[in-house]
């Protein structure tokens, strides 16, 4: 297709915290600076900047992209902000990828930031506006509804138990105990802890949910000739895909995310992957709720429909299993500053595939990984495949 090869050559992130002292700009700068410094680059080397950040309603800043631009190092450079709801964190690097793959730019800085704690009393209220203002909002819905409704439908369709779903939360939070930036890492959490936690919107309980968080992540993308000069361990972006389903979410199958399947098939085809279950060595599916990781693994074709819980029961998804899932700790463990959480998965694959993930390192020199995010009104899937 005449596209240039694109590599990730640097990554940086802030701690994910419940409430950060730093402003969104300051968080962005922290992550961007770490990405540049660890790649031995300066802002002068950057041709263009891409920023991802989710709803403006969180910090009540209109044109949040422009607000963040100095912290993201964007002034006097070509600059774009992308937004596809929760899918933003994995879409921003796709945007960066086509900036470079097209031949337009050689080196692009991608920054994703979210500060959710500014919203009082709770950021959940900021989500009210995602529902249709005429046909749904008069019912006074809250964000938990759609997750609870989808989770219940998923459980019922395939006969999946709460206990099987709780294993996801347990494994991700245990993995996060090894992440230096994690908000909710817990090496000792058990399935019983999840099942005994407060019921918010049955079947969703407190420990089924990722925490509201503040944080930022940055990665640097480079064309092949630059990447090979700058590092001896480039991690290539081998495939990208994204897809949007209908916003009439009550008019479609809630048990299976077809839009994730479409995004994954686009990425697999680009990467030349025919048997994803053998060829993907690390999966970082989007896990704002524990059942979502399962739902997405099925959409990604990494498990048969209704069979994703087996990956956890059989230990395949464990950090030392055949296909580790969320070795980072995921959103459930590291935290969920929306756009930053998606880009965290890209950074995790970068570190894992370079063998630099420290205590979280997946054994066996993994060669290829997949990161996926999801968002809008349960309708968008974004997928990136990376390999070395």
């Amino acid at each position, binding site marked *: 297709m005449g596209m240039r090869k694109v590599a990730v050559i640097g*990554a940086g*992130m*802030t*701690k*994910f*915290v*419940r*409430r*950060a*002292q*730093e402003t969104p700009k300051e*968080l962005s700068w*922290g*992550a961007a600076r*770490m990405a540049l410094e*660890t790649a031995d680059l300066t802002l002068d080397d950057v041709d263009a900047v891409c920023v991802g950040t989710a709803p403006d309603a969180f910090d*009540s800043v209109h044109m949040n992209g422009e607000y963040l631009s100095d912290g993201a190092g964007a002034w006097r450079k070509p600059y774009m902000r992308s937004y596809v709801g929760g899918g933003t964190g994995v879409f921003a690097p796709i945007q960066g990828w086509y900036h470079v793959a097209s031949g337009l730019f050689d080196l692009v800085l991608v920054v994703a930031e979210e500060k959710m704690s500014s919203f009082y*009393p*709770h950021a*959940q*209220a900021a989500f*009210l506006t995602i529902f249709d*203002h*005429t*046909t*749904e909002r*008069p*019912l*006074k*819905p*809250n964000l*938990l*509804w759609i997750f*609870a*409704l*989808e989770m*219940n*439908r998923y459980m*019922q369709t395939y006969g999946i138990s709460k206990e099987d779903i709780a294993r996801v939360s347990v494994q991700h939070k245990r993995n996060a105990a090894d*992440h*230096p*930036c994690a908000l909710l890492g817990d090496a000792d959490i058990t399935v019983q802890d999840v099942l005994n936690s407060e*019921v*918010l*919107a049955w*079947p*969703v309980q407190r420990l089924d949910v990722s925490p509201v968080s*503040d944080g930022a992540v940055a990665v640097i993308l480079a064309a092949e000739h630059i990447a090979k000069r700058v590092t001896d361990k480039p991690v290539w972006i081998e495939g990208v895909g994204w897809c949007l389903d209908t916003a*009439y979410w*009550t*008019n*479609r*199958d*809630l048990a299976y995310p077809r839009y994730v399947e479409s995004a994954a098939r686009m990425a697999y085809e680009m990467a030349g992957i025919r048997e994803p279950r053998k060829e993907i060595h690390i999966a970082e599916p989007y896990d704002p709720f524990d059942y979502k990781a399962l739902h997405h693994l099925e959409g990604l074709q990494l498990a048969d429909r209704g069979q994703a819980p087996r990956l956890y029961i059989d230990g395949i998804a464990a950090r030392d299993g055949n296909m580790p899932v969320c070795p980072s700790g995921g959103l459930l463990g590291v935290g969920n500053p929306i756009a930053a959480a998606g880009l965290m998965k890209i950074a995790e694959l970068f*570190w894992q595939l*370079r063998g*630099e*993930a*420290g205590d979280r*390192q997946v054994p066996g020199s993994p060669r290829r990984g997949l990161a996926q995010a999801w968002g809008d009104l349960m309708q968008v899937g974004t997928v990136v495949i990376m390999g070395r």
Partner: protein
Amino acid sequence: MTSKIKMFPGTPLSEEDFTEGNVLFNVDQMRGDFAWDTGVAIGAYLAALKEGMLLGARCATCRRTVVPPRLVCEWCFRPMVDYVPLQDTGTVNTFSLCYVTWDVQRIKEPEIPAVIEIDGASPLHGIMHKIGEVEPEKVHIGMRVKAVWRPPSDRVGAITDILHFKPIEEV
């Protein structure tokens, strides 16, 4: 790299930092009033609700009946001109027992949001609404329900003209 980095940026604050004045902060409110035009399709839907009827739209090309009605079929991108009355009964596709409000206040008696597949619409085609007049533990997927309407004089042409859906007595 994370194995080499000792210090990550980011400074966590606690609620006490605010209550004890350890950090400065400013407080503001965003206020916005809006009036949304309901448009052609949803306008017809709301007018029908005022008459005590649920309205759908049929796409002759895709052979499906959707609810709420819309001006264009999102799959074949042809106009949807065929508006059809649906039943005010349906089947619970999924539900939740919700113990928190939209701003995360705790409530004792759960709200019961549900997706209800409306009779007369295509399979898996429904609307979001609430279930009422039922013991929460008796609600189940597949349960048959019927709309409970406001009295005609109280209807304003809104989704809340249906108070909730209640179980259909099984005879």
